[in-house]
């Protein structure tokens, strides 16, 4: 009873006037009160840095990437947050004596990070977001370098909490879209989608989830396992059975690697196809994505995306002349999406661009 009340109160909090500014929300983010959680990692990375610092100049860039990878290895941490954490470490370690110098250091580091994995959208979105914060905070100009640094570091720390908070917000906002007795198709493995479905189930909703196999990484199988552990009934289909299954599906719910300016999403390969099928059968397609995945890019078609090839195992021996063309993700245009559940609220695809314009311009 009480918990329900609390939930509804909290929901009121998040759904009411979800106007957003990353920075103000960062201020408010006190959800996760366990900063110690991250300490060991940082400490170890610092040791690593000190060792590396002995080598040469260029190794500064390498350490950023190492740092990023360290953070990324944490299962609960999103890539964008890991990037921000890595950049925070750069600040800590920076020997710049002016804010300008610090900014230049940061810029270099974020360029290096982006160059390291050009295909990752949330990585670049995270870097952009943090850089945006650094360049935008005018107050920094008036503070001395130590205070400025401390402030930036503090901000960076908070992004981890924000990431968790955002996921919770989305789950709260989105769970009402899950109807009792419905069948939900999901594609790929998304932590946000998982949180949403778990919350809906814990609220007493009875629903059935259909997971796709999710080749080439078989992420669907992982998703199914996680759902099963939460006692949610799951069935698993192969990717090519999406159209076959769609008639008994009530809604499609997917995560996103990145949400682009047009309001479309970039997600695991096959999402576009699922959305197309759903659209043609008039089923709603919902996307759950944190707002730090909003990226300032505007792909016009699939070829506009930076290629993210991966190894795919085709059973049987392939003749040499056959080119296996594989990408790990695709772009779903906004017209096939119904709504986006974000921590800024439930948005239509066209509202994404509004938020992006306000965030970056």
């Amino acid at each position, binding site marked *: 009873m009480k918990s329900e009340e609390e939930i509804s109160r909290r929901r009121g909090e998040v759904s009411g006037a979800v106007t957003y500014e990353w920075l103000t929300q960062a201020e408010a983010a006190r959800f996760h009160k366990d900063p110690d959680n991250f300490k060991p990692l940082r400490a170890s990375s610092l040791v690593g840095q000190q060792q590396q610092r002995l080598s040469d100049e260029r190794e500064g860039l390498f350490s950023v990437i190492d740092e990023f990878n360290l953070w990324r290895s944490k299962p609960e941490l999103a890539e964008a947050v890991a990037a921000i954490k890595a950049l925070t470490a750069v600040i800590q370690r920076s020997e710049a004596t002016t804010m300008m110098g610090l900014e230049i250091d940061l810029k270099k580091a974020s360029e290096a990070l982006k160059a390291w994995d050009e295909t990752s959208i949330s990585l670049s979105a995270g870097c952009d977001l943090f850089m945006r914060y650094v360049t935008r905070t005018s107050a920094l100009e008036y503070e001395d370098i130590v205070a400025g640094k401390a402030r930036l570091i503090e901000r960076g720390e908070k992004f981890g909490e924000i990431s968790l908070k955002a996921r919770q917000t989305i789950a709260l906002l989105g769970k009402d879209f899950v109807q009792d007795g419905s069948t939900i198709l999901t594609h790929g493995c998304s932590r946000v989608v998982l949180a949403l479905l778990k919350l809906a189930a814990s609220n007493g909703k009875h629903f059935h989830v259909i997971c796709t196999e999710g080749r080439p990484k078989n992420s669907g199988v992982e998703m199914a396992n996680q759902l099963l552990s939460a006692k949610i009934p799951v069935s698993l289909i192969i990717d090519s059975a999406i159209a076959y299954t769609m008639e008994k599906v009530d809604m499609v719910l997917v995560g996103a690697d990145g949400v682009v*300016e047009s309001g479309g999403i970039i997600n695991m390969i096959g999402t576009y196809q699922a959305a197309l099928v759903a659209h043609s059968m008039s089923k709603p397609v919902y996307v759950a994505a944190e707002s730090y995945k909003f990226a300032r890019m505007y792909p*016009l078609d699939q*070829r506009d995306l930076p290629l993210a090839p991966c190894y795919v195992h085709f059973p049987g021996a392939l003749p040499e002349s056959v080119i296996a063309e594989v990408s790990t993700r695709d772009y779903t245009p906004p017209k096939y999406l119904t709504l986006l559940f974000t921590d800024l609220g439930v948005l239509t695809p066209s509202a994404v661009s509004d938020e992006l314009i306000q965030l970056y311009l």
Partner: protein
Amino acid sequence: METRRGARMVIDPKVRQVGFVTPGSELGRPAAPEPPGAAAPVPVVANSPSPVIIPLLLIPDTSSLRTTPLPVPSPPSRRVVAAPPADDSMPLGSYNPSDAILGSSQGSSERTGNNDKHGSAPTDSLADMSLSNASTLAIRLEGLNVTNDGISNVLSTSTVRSAVAAAPTSVEHAFQTSSGQGIIGSVPAVSVDMAAAANPQAGIDPRPMPLKDRTSKAERRAIQEAQRAAKAAAKGVGTDIAAIADGNVANEVKSSKPSSQKKGLSEKKPAVFSDKKPVVSSDKKPVVSSDKKSAEKASEKDKRKDIPAPRMQFDDEQRVAKAKRRSLIEQTEAKNRVELFRHLPQFLHGTQLPSLESKFFHEDPLHPHPSVFQVGLQYLTREIVGGNARCIAMLMAFRDMINDYSTPMEKTLVRDLTAKINSHVSFLITCRPISISMGNAIKFLKTRIASLPVTVSEFEAKHSLILEIDRFIQEKIVFADNEIVKHAVTKIRDGDVLLTHGSSCVVEMILVRAFELGKKFQVVVIDSRPRLEGKGLLRRLLGKGLHCTYTHINAASYAMQGVTRVFLGAASVLSNGTVYSRVGTACVAMVAHALGVPVMICCETYKFHERVQLDSICSNELGDPDALVEVHGRKDVYSLRGWADSKHLHVLNLMYDATPADYVSMIITELGMVPPTSVPVILREYRKVPYVM
């Protein structure tokens, strides 16, 4: 089509009656207008202790009527003449003190004007007070209790106050009922001063009470008669006659008052009254007193501050006639105007040129600055075309003008320069209707002028304005174009086939830049008659060494096959994402959409406009119809020779069309690439600051 337009062809503004309307009076009102002489209204003004002095001229200024799409009750209140010398405490407008303060300077002039009855300081809104409206009020109020104490008080306090109170009421009323006709600001103008003298309380009470119940139709009528009288006086009948008229008014008021109190008789009055109304309106035209003009200007300025002026509708004969009288240029209207586009200017092309040339050495204070004049001529002869080019040319001309400007004696720079710019803009409009981007630039300039601090010296003001103009050109056009090019080239890949239509300078810059970057792509230039602007683009692209294909719009569906990207320019992007651009753009965009080719619109944000437009009809520009008929270099295509004489032929040469947002994949602005749905966001975010954008 005909029937649809039929209703709008009405020239006389009409008020639809709402509420309790006496049927008889309604029927009587639109009765056939009497010949001007027949009903020449006996000019009447009371010579009783409290004569009604009407300082207003009734001049049918429909244009100003139409510039007020919102009820602005303030002007009438300010025109209400100031308190008599005896009563200083009386606010000018008896119900809107703040406004009275604003209008105080004017009030004094009115006061002086009152004495000789040459309608002083009538505002347009008052001046064109449509009697029909007033009668409406009278009708509305008819049947209400009249608590008038006596005939001896010809116009007692209650009358005056109620008349004043009636002003806002009638405004509201007109707004509710006649939005289509645009009689909005028309309010019965009542001079209160003498009445106030009779009963100072009228003046002291600044708040109008809902005094409907105290006024009678007859009183109202009396007021209107008096106004008419004043108008007649102003017409030049002379003071003497007006004086006589005064007596008549008094008489009539006296005689009518008792009758109104007998309710039975009252029904006739509106009918009688409205019979005379057309006469009044026909009388009004030629009278333009200088006082009136200045007042009109002032009030017009006021209105423009908060309300965007609606576009001139050229199917409104009165307004067209008025504009014609005002305009510097003589132009002949086209004979066979296209019915659907009657609201747009359709002049015979080239007819303005002789009159323009003859005016060139004419010394006239109203004469445009030589630079503006030159730019106007260049617009007219289509020497300067293209949104950016026209905008830059205009701004440079205004820059020259401001440079040579010196504030006349007894005028302030802010006001006089704004007026000057207005007159120059209207000159440019006669040369060629201005584009939306130019409108935005003008708005920018005017905002800058208006925001000049009063303390600034003329030299500094001019200097800062010139700097602002330079900055606008640099930031909003030059840098913006560079940014657009930067964004757009990222969308060009090796092996692309790019298609463009007509000639857009931004698209040209994009293509050239991508070529310079070493991208390997082909260009398809789609062209359309009659301007064949694509040829120029083609020539320039070929000169740079690009690989091009040239075809006409007829082959768009064929040419589109194999195209990977469509780049188009735009004259404007409207807030619903509609792209307003050179005619043919919509066609190309739709074909591209049908074939799944992304359509990218390249447009600087200064061209964005808050307006929403759904079709290409309500706002457009008509080109020279002759251009469609003649084919350059083809003597044999003369089958349409003398086409203008045929009643059955309407040749339509549209200049622009509207592409719905559905067919646009993205809009490339200097702020980045945005979907067409985000145009309102950009407008909202970047125009918060008074036109920083």
